[in-house]
């Protein structure tokens, strides 16, 4: 086995230019593929995994954006089966007066005391940050990408300009920054500060209810529907996962294009690798005939070709994913100025674990790309090859 691997390595080293070009092609495509997969995976993870079945989203029955009267809140919080609750009041805004698309953010006024408990993905948030938010009425916790764009640090003040009403400007003090990749473009701040600053004390946009499990959630949902059926305004209740999926459905066409790109990249990698292996196999027909004469079985010849492709694919895959992770890490380290490139990685950071993903993908691409050339190599007839030479 050891000898066999050595032979594969030697074969790859014989035509360094070809091996290098093939590896480069696969590396570049894996790099792009991993970023596309990260974007798609992040969106789907937020929809499927984090959209909880035991957390309920209560909104006004009909209108979007929803307005729930504050007078409804005590009754909702007291419903049987509700373990915890919070509210959201949205504040679409810009963090610069120029009001450019790249300066948009989504402010969320909410309760500070149970911020971590009621929001998936905030477990890594420092407890002292929550304490600071409780102490500082105008405190704010910024998404990592917003903090990067604003180039601000904890303790600094930021001004948010409402996208809806130019008179409702908020001045906040940054008390924390969210983990990278969580709640992109979101700025959390306190509901009581929002009410004071904007004068909106009568309604909230969404009420979130946490229940023990999906069964309890169903029970609570039934109570909400019955209790508020003939009230004005009516309420609507759905699980967080259903609500999030409905919003994500609006981007379905864009996600389909990303899926298409990933498929094209994978096929393209197979084609490029297959072409390269085919050329190499054709050039080495004599050598393979000699190997057969020396006693190598056809399956061993096949394994030799497949082995070369799998090795080159796996190595290129690993290099591609490592490069992608390195790009992401450099962008997140703060060494680079804010740009579309850094923003992309703040929205969709590539975790270190992704490096390992490149090896099986590259190996599979290599395997798929080498099957036909390997099959052809297996079938080489010694007599035909030597007859041609003679």
């Amino acid at each position, binding site marked *: 086995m050891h000898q066999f691997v050595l032979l594969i390595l030697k074969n790859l080293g014989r035509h360094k230019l070809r091996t290098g*070009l093939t590896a480069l092609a696969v590396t570049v495509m894996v790099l792009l593929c991993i970023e596309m997969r990260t974007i798609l995976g992040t969106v789907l993870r937020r929809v499927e995994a984090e959209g909880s079945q035991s957390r309920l989203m209560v909104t006004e029955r009909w209108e*979007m954006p929803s307005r729930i009267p504050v007078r409804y809140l005590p009754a909702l919080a007291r419903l049987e089966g509700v373990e915890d609750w919070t509210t959201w009041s949205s504040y679409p805004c810009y963090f610069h007066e120029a009001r450019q*698309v790249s300066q948009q953010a989504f402010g969320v006024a909410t309760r500070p005391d149970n911020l971590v408990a009621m929001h998936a993905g905030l477990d890594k948030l420092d407890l002292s940050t929550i304490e600071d938010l409780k102490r500082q009425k105008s405190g704010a916790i910024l998404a990592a990408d917003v903090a990067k764009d604003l180039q601000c640090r904890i303790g600094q003040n930021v001004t948010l300009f409402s996208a809806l009403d130019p008179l409702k400007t908020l001045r906040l003090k940054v008390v924390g920054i969210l983990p990278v990749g969580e709640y992109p473009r979101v700025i959390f701040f306190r509901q009581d500060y929002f009410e004071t600053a904007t004068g909106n004390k009568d309604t909230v946009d969404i009420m979130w209810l946490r229940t023990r499990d999906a069964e309890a959630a169903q029970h609570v949902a039934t109570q909400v529907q019955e209790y508020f059926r003939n009230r004005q305004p009516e309420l609507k209740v759905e699980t967080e996962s259903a609500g999030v999926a409905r919003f994500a459905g*609006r981007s*379905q066409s864009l996600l389909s294009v990303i899926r298409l790109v990933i498929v094209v990249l994978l096929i393209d*990698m197979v084609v*490029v690798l297959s072409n390269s292996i085919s050329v190499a196999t054709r050039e080495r027909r004599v050598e393979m005939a000699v190997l057969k004469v020396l006693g190598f079985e056809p399956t061993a010849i096949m394994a030799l070709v497949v082995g070369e492709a799998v090795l080159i694919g796996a190595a290129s895959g690993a290099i591609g994913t490592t490069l992608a992770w390195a790009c992401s890490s450099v962008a997140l380290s703060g060494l680079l100025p804010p740009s579309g490139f850094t923003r992309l990685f703040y929205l969709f950071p590539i975790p270190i674990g992704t490096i390992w993903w490149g090896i099986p993908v590259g190996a599979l691409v290599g395997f798929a790309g080498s099957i036909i050339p390997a099959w052809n190599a297996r079938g080489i007839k010694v007599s035909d090859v030597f007859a041609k030479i003679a």
Partner: protein
Amino acid sequence: MIPLSYSYRNLRVRWKTTLMTASAFTLVVAALVVMLAFIRGVEAACAASGEPENVLLLAKGDNDEVMSRLDHVVASQAENTRGVARDAANQPLASRELFMVLQHQDEKTGSYRFLQLRGVLPAAFRVHTVVHVTVGQAFRPSQSEVMIGKAVQRETGFQVGDQIEIGRKRWRISGVFEANGSALESEAWTDLNELAGQFRREGAYSSVVLRARGAREAEELAERLAHSRSLRVEAMTETSYYQKQTEGAGVMRTAAWVIAWFMGVGAMFGVMNTMFAAIGQRTKDIAVLRIMGFEAGHILLAFLLEATLIAVLGGSLGLALGYAANGFTQSAAIGARQIDFSFRIDAGILSFAGVFTILMGVLGGGLPALSAMRVKPLEALR
């Protein structure tokens, strides 16, 4: 000059390798065409969504109809502004509108979906001249009727005569309308007063649309209203309003180009591989050509041409494959609204993709062609 047939025949002789290398380009170009068609489709849907003669008024500070609130006084004042066109009865051509995004529950599945509903008065049909009822009839005021856009019908499957629940009432679908492929086709329209009554919005409007005599007059009117001291509103022509909605498409276009270039670089390495292999097999041929009197530059050109031909072959197939997406209808979120759009492939996209293909072919063939040019005839024949 080496005849073109030399390069062509070489490609034919190694047709399997040629096809394999070309297919890498096929996929890249097809993906590029689809991505650009997606962006062009969204832009086209937004571009078709405004009439240049119309001026849209929103509440001061608002850039979208969803949150905008105008009252009766502002609407009346705006309608009587100089520059607003008038009909035969000397009434201003102005449309007061209430735009709402409702959460409509599917009666069969129980799931919710967004329904964009616009409450309008009869004047709206004289202001939005692109709206035409194609099936059934327009809604009748105070009869709990709605008419739906073609895109809404495609999305929901609603038919004329169906009943849907909105607020506390059931509404009958009276007709289906088309609006020149614009964003309006993704809406349902009903009587403004009935809708306002249903959601306690009497006397409040999301927008007022004013019609001017022509596009130039509309721009002047928008300019005047935007800087008016007596009327605090956001005023813009309908075309510029929808243009603003596509600002996000610029980011998508950049992303599409970055993706295409990365994919192109991958395919380019594939061409390099093929060409280097071809040169390796034909060093003696090259030597003979040199001895026959062909110059190094001719060799360079011949191999560059060969690489370009591979790219053009693959690219052409890619264009044809990508073209299959033309006209494919999808919906996308643009700002707070959802619009229907068709993937649109035009001459611009085809030209871009063509230039991209040739460039990738030239770049991929450049290095191998240079190495072919450097082949020393005597050494190669020894």
